């Protein structure tokens, strides 16, 4: 299979290298990554009149084999858009894998997540896409910690591509960090939508007396008080289950729309 792996950290990050190494054993892999800050960019695009700078890295190797690799300056959505709309336009990948992201996206976090934004861009182009995330650790995880994650993705990669999900759907896969592959307890399909995060600000004053604000992501007030339901994805996740959620970009509220059409029709 022809697979595009996209990452928002950098081409040398363990998150990208370990995943690409596992997949390159059996598949034709192309990798791309951003340079510079790229957390919480959602689906942002560089429309501001500036072009997107990118570079093909000719000597990028994995397991001793040269792999096509590109690094970008721009937003995560820019990168997918240039890859699918130009560089791979006539050789579209069978699957786009976004990740491994150092951080997971639950509930409404998906709107600002860079990793989800990339998977969504790919599914706009009708290419099956998955977003893979692991719990965040400052500084990131080591290759050894990420190996079981990559092994799970590599084992099921053909099933992800051929899952026959609706065209407006992509997969959000949340994987716990375990010591070895056998520690995984199973694979669950669930939403995990009760543990979303909110943006709050820390107010500070600089040496000139100006106020500035640092953003921080905190648990939603109500969710923090809610006990995790034993059937929710998160409770299984904590027991080392891998959780998959099919997400759609078609977010029309059909129930509200039907009601509105009835009323306005009158």
């Amino acid at each position, binding site marked *: 299979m022809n697979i595009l792996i996209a990452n928002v950290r950098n081409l040398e990050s363990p998150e990208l290298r370990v995943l690409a190494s596992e997949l390159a054993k059996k598949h034709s892999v192309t990798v791309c990554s951003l340079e510079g800050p790229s957390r*919480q960019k959602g*689906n942002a695009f560089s429309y501001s009149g500036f*072009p997107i700078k990118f570079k093909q890295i000719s000597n990028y190797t994995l397991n001793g084999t040269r792999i096509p690799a590109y690094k970008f300056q721009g937003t995560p959505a820019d990168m997918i*858009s240039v890859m699918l709309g*130009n560089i791979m336009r006539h050789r579209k990948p069978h699957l786009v894998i976004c990740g491994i992201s150092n951080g997971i996206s639950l509930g409404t976090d998906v709107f600002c997540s860079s990793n989800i934004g990339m998977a969504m861009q790919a599914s706009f182009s009708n290419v099956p896409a998955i977003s893979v995330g692991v719990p965040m650790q400052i500084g990131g995880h080591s290759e050894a910690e990420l190996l079981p994650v990559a092994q799970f993705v590599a084992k099921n990669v053909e099933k992800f591509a051929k899952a026959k999900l609706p065209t407006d759907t992509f997969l959000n896969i949340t994987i716990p960090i375990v010591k070895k592959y056998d520690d995984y307890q199973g694979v669950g399909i669930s939403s995990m939508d009760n543990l979303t995060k909110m943006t709050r600000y820390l107010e500070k004053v600089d040496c000139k007396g100006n106020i500035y604000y640092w953003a921080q992501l905190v648990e939603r007030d109500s969710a923090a008080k809610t006990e995790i339901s034993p059937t929710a994805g998160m409770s299984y996740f904590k027991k080392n289950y891998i959780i998959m959620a099919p997400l759609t970009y078609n*977010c029309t509220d059909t129930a509200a729309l039907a009601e509105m059409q009835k009323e*306005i029709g009158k």
Partner: protein
Amino acid sequence: MKILITNEAGCFHPGIVALAKELCKDHRVCIVGPLTKQVGAGHSLTVDQRPLHAQQWYVLDNIKMWSVDGTPCDCVALALDKLLLDKPDLIISGIDFVNNHGNMIYTSGVVSAAVEGAIQGVKSMALSAVIKNEKKERDYRAVAKFVRRKLEFLASKIPDFGLLNVNFPEKIKPKRLMPTHLTDGLLDNEYEIEVNPFGSTFAWMKNPLREYSLDAYEQKGDLYWLKQGYITITPLKLDLLKGEALDTLQKAGIKL
């Protein structure tokens, strides 16, 4: 009502000013907008790159105005957490000078700011129009007047755990109002590759407005009705889980 207005084109942009001037006739209005143009900012948040600064301006009588050196979503989140004394009853994002329909909503800072408002539990709507001259305040007045007249009606249509996306055609006929769904079928962006004198490669987007496939019009969604001259109203939800795909996924046989 206490109304917070934001946008993506900047807090001094004529679209936001026209709307604020009209709504302040009946309501308590506050503007918190980005300091600079943030077109295509989507739901991007300024988190670990740098801190945010907010500045108060005294430009319009009776209307408090703040600029934030961030994205539209930063503006909403910071306004609700730190800048506003009271939680607003309604957040309105706009008036954008181009329509935000179909899958383009995810790239739009205007719609994303309303999404952020809805996430934070405030009733929110996004307004986008086709404006002849985006720099002329009077070109936004027809939309602003319509919104003022229909505000209670529009606010009552905002779904729980969701928001309203309202698009205006070039010529507004108040009775031509169409509740409809988002259009699917965005085509890939096309890029032109350029190598600069220093040997660096750049991709220029050929058309800044993404286009839809031909069959997108046949879906009779927001794109179609806008072309027919209707004001479109689309209720959006925040839960992106695709329930119908759960069974298909189960059958895919993904396992350890």
